[in-house]
């Protein structure tokens, strides 16, 4: 078994990140005209419509673990990533860092916790300031955070660039002078420069060509070993997640529907949605694939279906699914799924 596959050693230590009951509601205000009309007519003003981007999400990530977060567009992956990276304040829920709630921390501790969690984005171009040179993009934050003295920053940037596979000779260049894969490496170098413990990677390889994607995935695995990093790896690509993650979390319309160790989840998916995703995942093989067993569209997050959000598309749905939200049931240590069938089976 390779180095990168080693089991995270927890020794009873609390998770690096632990969130409970996270809700995130984005209010979409009713269109101004409607609001104005209602007011003039003396009618009650239209209720603001809320997108429940996250609906009661629990997640623990242990030290050294790579957790893959998978789901279709709009299910809340990036929102959860931003909450965990401390970029977005959730509507409700608690957030613990190494077992300590944020509200218990001194301002200085909170600041340090924030720096320890860094986020890497999908679009390697949009996330880099086009007017800054690479040396400043990578070197600015470590100086500001007092991690490296200003006098030593040039050498420090060289070292980080080498680690990320970019030639330090290029450090006076601007982002547009690099290819997509190189820009993604610069984004990774910038995040690493503040010596984080935890990286949230949001579709960090999605924009890259296959051969370049392989280089960046290998880099993530090397860095994990060299810097003892923990990852939340967000991706819609089931193949990439299968390759890199120790554990996978599947989301559907703002809720976690299944979580299990990677090998277990891919071999033995328990939730009907996970089963559908895996059946439809394109794989390189010598046989034709039978695509498309799952019917229907992804519903609008503005108006999610009642009960189990998946019921209009689920081949096994029964009356209870329309009425009642399934709880996330633990089937074995580390294995849980939210589907009424699993409860019925246990009866």
């Amino acid at each position: 078994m390779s180095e990168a596959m080693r089991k995270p050693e927890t020794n009873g230590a609390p998770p690096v990140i632990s969130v409970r009951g996270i809700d995130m509601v984005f209010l979409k205000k009713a269109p101004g005209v409607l609001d104005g009309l209602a007011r003039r007519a003396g009618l009650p003003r239209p209720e603001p419509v809320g997108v429940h981007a996250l609906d009661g999400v629990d997640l623990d990530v242990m030290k050294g673990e790579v957790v893959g977060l998978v789901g279709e567009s709009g299910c809340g992956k990036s929102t959860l990533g931003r909450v965990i990276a401390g970029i977005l304040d959730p509507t409700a829920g608690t957030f613990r860092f190494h077992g300590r709630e944020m509200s218990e921390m001194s301002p200085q501790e909170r600041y340090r916790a924030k720096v320890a969690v860094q986020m890497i984005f999908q679009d390697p171009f949009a996330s880099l300031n086009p007017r800054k040179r690479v040396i400043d993009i990578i070197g600015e934050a470590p100086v500001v955070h007092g991690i490296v003295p200003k006098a030593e920053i040039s050498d420090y940037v060289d070292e980080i660039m080498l680690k990320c596979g970019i030639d330090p000779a290029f450090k006076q260049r601007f982002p547009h002078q690099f290819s997509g894969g190189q820009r993604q490496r610069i984004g990774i170098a910038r995040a690493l420069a503040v010596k984080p413990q935890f990286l949230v990677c949001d579709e960090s390889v999605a924009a890259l060509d296959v051969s370049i994607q392989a280089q960046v995935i290998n880099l993530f695995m090397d860095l994990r070993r060299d810097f003892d990093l923990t990852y939340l790896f967000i991706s819609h690509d089931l193949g990439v997640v299968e390759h890199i993650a120790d554990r996978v979390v599947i989301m559907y319309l703002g809720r976690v529907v299944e979580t299990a160790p990677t090998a277990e989840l891919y071999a033995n998916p328990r939730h009907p949605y996970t089963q559908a995703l895996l059946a439809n995942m394109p794989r390189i093989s010598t046989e034709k694939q039978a695509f498309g067993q799952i019917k229907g569209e992804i519903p609008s997050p503005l108006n999610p279906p009642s009960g189990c959000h998946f019921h209009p598309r689920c081949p096994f749905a029964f009356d209870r699914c329309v009425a009642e939200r399934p709880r996330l049931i633990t089937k074995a240590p580390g294995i849980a799924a939210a589907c009424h069938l699993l409860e019925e089976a246990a009866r």
Partner: protein
Amino acid sequence: MSDVRGGAAQPTLVVEGLKTHFFTEAGVVKSVDGVDLSVSRGEILGLVGESGSGKSVTGFSILGLIDQPGRIVGGSVKLNGEELTTASPKRLRSLRGDRIAMIFQDPMMTLNPVLKIETQMIETLQAHIKIGHAEARARARDALGRVGIPSPEERLDSYPHQFSGGMRQRVAIAIALLHGPDLIIADEPTTALDVTIQAQILSEVQTLCRETGTALIWITHDLAIISGLADRVAVMYAGRIVETGAIAEVVSNPRHPYTYGLIGSVPSRNKRGQRLTQIPGMTPSFLSLPQGCAFAPRCPNADAKCLEMPELSPCPSAAHRARCFHPMPEGAEA
């Protein structure tokens, strides 16, 4: 073997030695530089390659849609035996939408945002055949139904913005299918879609081609999609086809070092937790291609001979060809 399907009948499309160059200020960009392809009735050909390899330009060239500063500078494109590279713009217009249709990554390339779906579909029908409104509407409705749009009758009265991305792509496909074309060129049409929606569309397209006998070229950067969908594959690198053959054969026995590396780069179950094969370096710029084989600077097998340009040659049979002087040994596991 899918290669000999149709027996002696000529393939629907035969492309030979196609060259499309762009004459830019920075120099001549040889985006397509000697491409050979063919696809027969009811057959699905996958055209794969990384971004910038020339896939889309190949598709546009077949359709006669290359604009300044680009030009087809060589080769031939024959649809049912008719030469298209020398056809008049009028003839090309009448073939497009009728005998050849294209589906793009962004369905809004096909759809007009300010017109109802019904209007667009009826106009497309009436552009090529004499047909009354009621009959055209009925055909439009059936076409929407065939690509899996629920309640097609009501949906005819919607505007494109009232559909999700997946639904819009289905409408674009329905429009492409209206005239029962002989050939469809689909350029990354599911790349922006979610897994379950992509799978629905792949399944519908597969069935439709089989039923109607339409020949399909499916352009994508994703080899996994092609391996599940296509009969044959053509792998493109720097403006040329570097390997082609039956999909199962190419995937299980890649002979060109680039194809071999590409398959090794795709994360998959049996490589879990291991390092992925890396193809070193990056795709070359068209403005500074290396002499001879364009893959040479990244190739583990390269030697002095590779300073010349290899031909696309039988590897070992004419049904499986690779453009390489030192192909990977037969049966090498990627």
